[in-house]
């Protein structure tokens, strides 16, 4: 049990919760405020992370410029997805988003010359060299560590991720209190009524999709920086489902419910590693990994069944239809 007492471990859980907060915040904008059922959110993480890593390793760009372009690429990805599929019926749209994220992962896996293929970012550079995209991030992180007077890079990362997450939460919260945010909610509740009032509902939905995509992109950058390496396998549809669980746990249509859901998710996901008593000891470590995902699936199903508005959601404002 010694790892439970280790600050580094809990800092890691906190960092993961912070990254998922940003990822799920994107879903909250798209679904909680615009009613768009997006099951391909992980694709925007992948697009931003790969754009950043490729520009740094292959083109020698400054990492910050490459990161900005990564977010821009994720946003453009959201716009392209929306332009081609937002006019579809909602159930078709949901299916197309899963397909979109799988195609992104498929291209990342197979276009080895561009992405390094299944070997991941380590194979981005020339043959025989192990490529690195986060040298600039490491020096930035140690600079922050020094300025804060910290002695652990885990704690520093925790502060950076949550600082950014809180700024993004605040900006989203403020943005949704503007007339723009009110139109978005009107479209979610009754699209025809909003259209009858002269609102271009397509443009609003497209903006919400692109904004959520940008947030997904930022989550992807932090994912890349936290783990210093990634491959197409890191962007399985499972990550999107985790983000949905966070959204459902926290509550629909509530910006500040997202970090609560992400916190619970982090504890469930990391905490279930310590189920080392019967009956869990009957299974090996593989078995316990499967059990952990069964628990996550159960939480999703039970929430849909008994509390479709989420823990903090307001039943009168929004229930999962």
């Amino acid at each position: 049990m010694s790892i439970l007492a280790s600050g580094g471990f809990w800092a890691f859980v906190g960092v993961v919760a912070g990254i998922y907060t940003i990822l799920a915040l994107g879903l909250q904008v798209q679904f909680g405020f615009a009613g768009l059922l997006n099951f391909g959110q992980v694709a925007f993480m992948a697009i931003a992370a790969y754009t950043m890593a490729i520009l740094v390793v292959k083109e020698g760009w400054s990492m910050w410029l490459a990161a900005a372009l990564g977010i821009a690429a994720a946003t453009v990805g959201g716009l392209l997805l929306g332009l081609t599929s937002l006019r579809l019926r909602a159930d078709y749209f949901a299916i197309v988003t899963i397909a979109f994220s799988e195609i992104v992962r498929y291209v990342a896996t197979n276009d080895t010359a561009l992405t390094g293929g299944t070997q991941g970012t380590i194979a981005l550079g020339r043959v025989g060299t192990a490529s690195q995209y986060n040298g600039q991030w490491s020096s930035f992180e140690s600079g922050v560590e020094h300025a804060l007077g910290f002695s652990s890079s885990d704690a520093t990362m925790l502060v950076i991720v949550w600082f950014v997450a809180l700024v993004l939460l605040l900006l989203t919260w403020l943005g949704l209190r503007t007339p723009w945010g009110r139109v978005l909610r009107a479209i979610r509740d009754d699209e025809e009524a909003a259209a009858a009032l002269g609102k271009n509902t397509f443009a609003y939905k497209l903006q919400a999709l692109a904004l959520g995509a940008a947030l997904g992109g930022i989550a992807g950058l932090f994912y890349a920086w936290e783990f210093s390496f990634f491959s197409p396998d890191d962007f399985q549809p499972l990550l999107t489902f985790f983000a949905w669980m966070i959204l459902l746990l926290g509550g629909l249509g509530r910006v500040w419910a997202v970090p609560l859901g992400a916190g619970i998710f982090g504890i469930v996901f990391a905490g279930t590693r310590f189920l080392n008593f019967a009956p869990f000891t009957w299974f090996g470590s593989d078995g316990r990994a499967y059990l952990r995902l069964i628990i996550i699936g159960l939480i999703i199903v039970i929430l849909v069944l008994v509390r479709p508005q989420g823990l903090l959601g307001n039943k009168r404002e929004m229930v999962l239809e």
Partner: protein
Amino acid sequence: MPVHQSMLVAALTGMVATAALAVVLDFVLWKPLRARRAGFMSLFLASIGLALILRQALLLAAGSQPRSFAVNPYRVFVLGGVRLSEAQVIAIATAAVIIVAVALFLALTTVGRVLRAMADDRALAAIAGIDVGRATLLAWLISGALAGLAGVLAGLVEYSFDPNFGFELLLPVFAAVVLGGIGSAYGALAGGLALGLAQEVSTWSGFAGGVNPVYKPVVAFAVLAVALMIRPQGLFGQARAG
């Protein structure tokens, strides 16, 4: 051939098991959701959670190692210039028989008409004196058994399979259903054929040099995207969800 006989028994047992599972899931999950008048968003999310549970349970019970059925992959049948493996012959013949049988069942029998009436308008069917509960149970039994059979056939054709192979099948299935139009059985058939043809033709070198075969799934979705821009409800779908 004793091997084939025992496989037939095993396949039937598998179909009974999936049919029973479908009925159990209706009672614990779908029925309560119907009672709450849950819309498709709830159904979509619940089914994604359920898929996660079932797949991980399968991994827990059976492990992640690939398995294969005891068929000889090198035995080839030649039917008028077309070379087919034993597994392909079994799969194509079974699928053809089942498709015709289901079509006849839906079109000609009373139970088939009851099911179609219920799909059209559940409330109206109930008012007309149809036992909606029993018909729903029957629908789950049939679809559960057919899904189980499809799993066995897909395992035969793919030769090797593991608990994740259902997810790999999901995208082509989605693409076929969306192209054909959700809710249309014949649409799914036409959509599946059209996408399969488009995928294979795209790799032919006479066709603009041919696409790299690894991108066949991407070709399927490109076709789907273009088709949906022209006809957003799918080839045979209705313009609005009922």
